[in-house]
């Protein structure tokens, strides 16, 4: 009766039309990851208040995949085993143990780069220095990057919200009048969204 979550992911990822490749990229980044995780049982309010804390491990994992080689898999397998054991207790990864893990990963990546001269020549030097730099400097910047939604998704959301609010504005105006404070609040929100849209168009044009 229960399908494996990853199988469900594979099946569901083929559900949509194939012609939307660029939009599928957005989906692959942000909507189909981390399905059927034990932490789904976390209360909604916790997710809304602190989505950063609950998905740090999955985000970190994805980011690591992009920057490091295969050696980190072993470290992550150890982490996954631990997670599976703890899944019934629904414990979250402590900040401290997460930091430990990051240090271990960094050292494994770093040692891999140092020991193997060939791989060092193959890998650009910017990658290793990139890893070290990211760990020591600009940490807050990278954390913020991981928290943000992709720009195409933000654009889609804002465009749609703008259309909806514009129609709502007409209802407000006809129902409670143009001078009502609720109508003015709505108008301000619409203007804010339009300004953001124009900024983006301006930036993309240049």
């Amino acid at each position: 009766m229960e399908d494996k979550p990853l199988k469900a992911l594979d099946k569901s990822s083929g559900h949509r039309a194939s012609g939307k490749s660029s939009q599928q990229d957005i989906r692959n980044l942000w909507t189909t990851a981390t399905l059927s995780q034990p932490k789904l049982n976390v209360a909604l309010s916790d997710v809304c208040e602190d989505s950063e804390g609950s998905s740090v491990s999955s985000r970190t994992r994805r980011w690591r995949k992009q920057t490091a080689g295969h050696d980190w898999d072993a470290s992550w397998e150890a982490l996954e085993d631990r997670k599976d054991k703890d899944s019934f207790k629904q414990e979250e990864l402590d900040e401290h143990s997460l930091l430990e893990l990051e240090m271990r990963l960094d050292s494994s990546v770093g040692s891999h780069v140092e020991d193997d001269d060939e791989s060092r020549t193959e890998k650009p030097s910017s990658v290793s220095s990139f890893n070290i730099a990211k760990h020591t400097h600009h940490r807050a910047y990278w954390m913020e990057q991981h928290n943000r939604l992709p720009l195409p998704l933000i654009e889609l959301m804002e465009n749609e919200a703008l259309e909806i609010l514009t129609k709502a504005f007409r209802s407000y105006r006809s129902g409670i009048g143009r001078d009502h404070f609720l109508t003015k609040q709505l108008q301000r929100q619409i203007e804010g969204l339009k300004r953001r849209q124009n900024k983006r168009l301006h930036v993309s044009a240049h």
Partner: protein
Amino acid sequence: MDCFPPCFKTFAIRASLFQHSSSEAEFSLQLQAARAFGLKSARMKLKEGSFLWYLYLDKLYCLLSVRNVKALVDYFHLLDVHRKNTLNDVLFYHFLHHVTTLKRRQINIVFNMLDWSAMGEIGFDQFYMLVCILLARENQLEEQFIFRHSRPVFELLDLDGELKIGADNFHMYNFLFNIKRQELRELYHDFDITGDRLLNYKEFKLFTMFSMDKYQERQKAEKEKEKDKDKDKDKVLLKKKRSHQVNMSPNTSFWNKWIRK
């Protein structure tokens, strides 16, 4: 601002009058009454290219992933123009009208259903629930969704808080949960153990388990059909290959030439 059409209120009164009927004829009369008020189960669809259209439900738990929820929170805050962490009926109506094919009456019914505290506003919890229901409907996961979340669905359908639901409740929300007429009859025939033409939670739970089993059997049957189709295709291809090879072989070409002479 009153967005509730007057006919909805009339329907609610008449539905309560029909609730405790006993005969089969009266049962079908309930369904007809519900349909007469324009609540036919037209297939609800999410508009292609809308933000919700890109979201996915986990097929096992029928919930959104954390990333999806994060995106949904931001989307909700874009629509929450009055900074109250809620959507009023006007904003809710325009949102649902923009992203789905639901009609005004249906949207009002959904709003009524979700506004369980009767505040005239929808908070993020209710919004999240609605999105999950819409996605389940869109991806034809209604049986799975109702099975996984039978308690919240029961509480949503139980409009008057009597801890029992009648056929009119089901039919009213048919456009959301897609319970067909025949299934509804079977539901009340097979699962109304107490015989009061109403389902309590236990009876409803039995129904969800039963429909889940049926759904899985249907899935299996469909898979087997596809396998058989693939096998037939392979057979046809093999036959073609063989006949092609036979035609191309020297002996047969000699015979063909001889025949043509």
